[in-house]
Every structure is written in structure tokens, then in C-alpha cells.
């Protein structure tokens, strides 16, 4: 049963990815203006343009170009960036760690903030504090990451300049890193000075991404905690003499957490999608920032590679969450 489900899920994931590839491919080939002409110096001849167009395969029909591209992808070749003339795969993989670190940090912050809000709200139910938490939740929920980012720039970049609001690391610092995962590698190398600098750069963009998700987690977890708290077994544990804190965190929480988990999966993909504009806002050197530059420069192969990579990440997250849900929920496992 589990394996059947897994295979079916991988099948639909493949269909989705092919669909994304086809749409991106068609859309970006309708772009007006010849990207090749923009690469050449002003004195270039028609023959130069034609030669370079042929080099990038842009003189063939769209289906033919697609087939060539798919063939390349299957061999790990995503084409060459028009602006930097480096392989797309290298460029994209070079930026991926920055975006992954930012997204994961934001996810951790969202779970911490949202979880705390839900548990505190449940502990203090019926009081004014619960009302205040609900109102804050509602506000955080309806304002998107873009606006939170701007608000944070004003608050902690200008009004009280305590955090960095631009870039990923202070440019003058010497970086001993061999991987792109600065945050993890600096910890691994015990370079806490670098680690602090990197965290200080990441905190604001990560918080901007985390706030809306934290609100969703807070709201949903609190709702399911509320329902669980009325169940008989919770009352039983209370009559056994356990304190309220124990009842909430040890008895109610494990059962209330499952619906939140599925939701966090989908919402995490929205969060990753949000990195595009938030990275732009904070001049953070990740995939999203590179994507916007690629669109502005009409760098077709690069745009294609980035969008496909995002789609792969999104579908992978959804797949993992689905499987995790099946594994964690005993009712589905044997269903």
C-alpha cells in the first residue's frame, strides 16, 4: 500500500515537473528583443549575431529547442548563462545554499514563534493575554513577507541599527569556506566571529519570511490543541494529578501536532517562493535575487534553470511531507 502510494506520487510529481518545464520554456521564448544582440558590442555585424544565435540554438523551432534542452538536462547540462557565460548548473548550485539556509532559518523561527504563541495562548486561555495573542496572530497573518521585510528594514536598520539589512556577510571579511553553506560551515569550523556576522545579516530577512508562517502555525496549532484539550484522555491525565503545563505539552501536543505538520509542508513552499522578493529587498545573494537579475537581463537559460530548480524544491518538499504524514499517522499507514 505504502509503496503503491509512493510510486503514484512520484508519477504525478514527474508530470508536474514536465509541465513546469514546458510552460517556462514556451513563455520565455516569447520574450521580445533578441538576447543575443544585447550581448555583442555595438560594432558587431549581422553575421556575428547569426553565429551566436546558432551557438545558443536560438535559431531552431521551439519544440526542437526543447528537445535539445531536455537531452542536455538528462546529461546534467542546463545550458550556458548568456550574461556570465558560465554553466547554468554551476551558477544555480552556487547560489542554492544561500537560499536554503535562509529558508531553513526562517522555518525554524516560524515554528519556534508560532509554537510558542499557540502553547502560551492555550495555557492562558480565557484571559486577556489570549485575546492579545489572537489579535497579533491575525495581523501577522494578513500582511505578507514583502511588507514585513520593509518594516524590519525601517525598525532595525534605520531607527535602531542593530542588524545588517543588506547582503549575506560583511564584504571585507576573509571567508575560509569551501562550501556555500556559510551558516553551517562557520559553526563547523568554530569560527563564531563569522557565524555571528552571518546570523546578523540573515536574521531580518529570515524574520520577514517567518512572520506570516508563524501566524499560520500559531493559529492552527492552537485550534487543534483546543479540540484535543476536550478529549477524555486529557481529562484523565488531569485527574491523575498532572499539572497544566505537563498536560498541554506532553498529553495534548503530540496528538494536536499532526494537522499542523501537513500544513507547514505546503506553507514552507510558499515561504521558499517568498525568498525571491525578500532576497531582493535585503540584497541577499541567493537564488531569488539572481532570478530577478536574470529576468531583467533576459538571460533565458539562467531563468529556465532557476525556475526548474524552484519547482524541484517545491515538489520535493510536498513529497517528503506527504510521506512523513503517512509514516507518522498510524491510521493511514495500514489503510
Amino acid at each position, binding site marked *: 500500500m505504502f509503496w503503491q502510494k509512493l510510486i503514484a506520487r512520484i508519477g504525478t510529481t514527474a508530470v508536474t515537473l514536465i509541465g513546469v518545464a514546458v510552460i517556462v520554456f514556451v513563455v520565455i521564448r516569447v520574450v521580445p528583443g533578441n538576447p543575443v544582440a544585447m550581448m555583442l558590442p555595438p560594432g558587431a555585424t549581422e553575421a556575428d549575431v547569426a553565429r551566436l544565435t546558432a551557438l545558443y540554438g536560438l535559431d531552431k523551432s521551439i519544440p526542437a529547442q526543447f528537445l535539445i534542452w531536455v537531452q542536455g538536462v538528462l546529461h546534467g547540462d542546463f545550458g550556458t548563462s548568456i550574461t556570465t557565460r558560465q554553466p547554468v548548473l554551476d551558477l544555480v548550485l552556487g547560489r542554492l545554499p544561500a537560499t536554503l539556509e535562509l529558508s531553513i532559518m526562517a522555518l525554524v523561527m516560524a515554528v519556534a514563534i508560532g509554537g510558542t504563541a499557540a502553547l502560551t495562548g492555550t495555557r492562558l486561555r480565557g484571559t486577556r493575554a489570549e485575546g492579545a495573542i489572537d489579535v497579533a496572530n491575525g495581523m501577522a497573518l494578513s500582511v505578507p513577507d*514583502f511588507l514585513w521585510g520593509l518594516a524590519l528594514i525601517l525598525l532595525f536598520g534605520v531607527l535602531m541599527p542593530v542588524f545588517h539589512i543588506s547582503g549575506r556577510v560583511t564584504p571585507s571579511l576573509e571567508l575560509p569556506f569551501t562550501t556555500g553553506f556559510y551558516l553551517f560551515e562557520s559553526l563547523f569550523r568554530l569560527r563564531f566571529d563569522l557565524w555571528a556576522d552571518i546570523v546578523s545579516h540573515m536574521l531580518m530577512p529570515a524574520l520577514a519570511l517567518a512572520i506570516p508562517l508563524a501566524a499560520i502555525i500559531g493559529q492552527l496549532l492552537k485550534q487543534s490543541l483546543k479540540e484535543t484539550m476536550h478529549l477524555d484522555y486529557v481529562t484523565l491525565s488531569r485527574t491523575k494529578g498532572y499539572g497544566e503545563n505537563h498536560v498541554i505539552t506532553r498529553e495534548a501536543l503530540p496528538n494536536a501536532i499532526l494537522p499542523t505538520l501537513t500544513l507547514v509542508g505546503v506553507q514552507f513552499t510558499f515561504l521558499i517562493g517568498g525568498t525571491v522578493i525578500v532576497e531582493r529587498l535585503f540584497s541577499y545573494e541567493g537564488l531569488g535575487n539572481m532570478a530577478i537579475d536574470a529576468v531583467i537581463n533576459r538571460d533565458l537559460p539562467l531563468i529556465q534553470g532557476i525556475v526548474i530548480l524552484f519547482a524541484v524544491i*517545491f515538489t520535493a518538499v510536498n513529497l517528503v511531507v506527504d510521506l512523513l504524514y503517512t509514516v507518522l499517522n498510524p491510521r493511514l499507514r495500514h489503510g
Partner: protein
Amino acid sequence: MADLTDGRGAVKRRIGTRLWLAGGWLTLLLLAAVFAPLVAPQDPLAQDLFLTRLPPFWEKGAEAGYWLGTDSLGRDVLSRIIYGARLALVVALVAGSITCIIGSALGLMAGFLRGWVDLVISRLIDIWMAFPPVLFSILLIAVIGPGLHSIILAIVIIDWTRFARVIRAEAMAQGAMDYVASAQVAGRGRIGTMLREILPNVLPTIVVLLTLEMGIAVIVEAILSFVNLSISTDDPTWGGMIAEGRASVYQAWWVLVFPLITLFLTVLAFSQLGEGLKDRFDPVLR
């Protein structure tokens, strides 16, 4: 029992205030947008190099008539916010409505007719969900070129799934209910049942989603003008002002703060309107 009714009364009052505040702000904005030439104290496009980066009225060095200060080209911030409301509201209303109609229609068909219609629409939704929406919209604008029509088109193309997903699920749940079966027994056709029986029952959800979508449309427009891809760069847009304010935030914070507050309030108002309507439609609270 007195306890319960009191609680309910409080909830109702809270919803009431929320709806009034949200509705009030949006009405104010709409009036300002419609009568912009009458209310705006200055020409929003007029540059004056002798009046650059004037602070708002309560700060030292402010000039009369430039209530919220001026930007680096000496253009009046308040007037630009007022004129920017025009674009924001047009995008919210037009893009929101078209997205709503297309998305709801597809969701209704997928959820009620099922079969291959559902299969195709669901697959499309899956594919759409695998795109990062902001990147997708920036890409679309780059392809179809900037301008009001392009923004609206981009929002419709990207956001129809928001309606389709929810309405599909709702229509599916409604379709399983007894009243639908009895309508069919009474001789209504499939399409007739869908439009006469299912649609009225999912309409409250559609209205709530529509108000939320309007808020989202305002944000998308701001993001696009922030990346400088919205309409021609001369016309005042909130996103354009924010982009400029972000660049000069250390020299003139007010160029960023005031459009940002306006955007905050507008997005909050749309979502509170949606939330308020949702509770209003909830028969338990009524």
C-alpha cells in the same frame, strides 16, 4: 446561558468594529483616488530641485503645502500616494474580479463535474503550485511588457489557482449532500444543478476569497513596481515610491515610511473585510 449570549454579543461587536474600520479606510482611499486632482495638494509629477527631500510637516525644515515631505526629485509624497491609490485600486478591483470569476468557474467545474475535467484542472493546479509566484509574475511582465493591462493579466494568470483550489474542495463537499441528489431527482440537469444549487452555497466563500485577492493584487502591483516592472516609471505607484524610499532610507526615511503605512493599512483592511464577512456569513454567529 447569559454568559454565552454575552460572549456572542462581544464577538459580534468586535466583528462590527473591524468591518467598519476596514470599510472606512477603503472608502477613504477610493474617494481620494477618484477625486485625486481635487484633494492632492501638489502636482504628483512636478519636480522642484529647490525643494528636494523636505521632511514631513512636524520636522524642522518642512515647507507649508508639502505635508508628508518630498522625495529626492522634490515631488510631493502625499500627492504621489493619493495618485498611486488610483493604480492600486484599479488593479485590486479589476484583477481581483477577473481572477475570481475564472478561478471560481474552474474550481466549480472541477469539484462538481469531476471526471476528466477535474483531472485536467487538478493537474494544472499542481503545475501552477510548483512555480514561485513572485518570480512567475516578474517573468510574465518581462515577457508581455510593462503596463496596466500586463499587471492585471499576470495576476489573473498566476492567482486563479487560489480560487480554483478552495472552490473545488467546497463544491466537492456540497456535491455529496442530499439536497443536490434531490435536485437531480427533481429533474435538474448537471449544469443547472451546478449553477442553481452549488453556486449559491459556495458564494460566501467566493466573496471572502475575492476580498483577500484584492489585497494580494495590491501587493503584487507594489512588488512589480518595486522591481521597476509595473507601468511607466513617471506615474506614481506605491511600489515605485517604496523602491525609491528603500534606496534613500538613510537620507529621507519619510519617502519609504508613508507609502509603506498606506500599503500596510490597505492590505490589512482588505483582509479584515474578508475575515469580517466570513464571520458574518457564519450561521453559528448570526
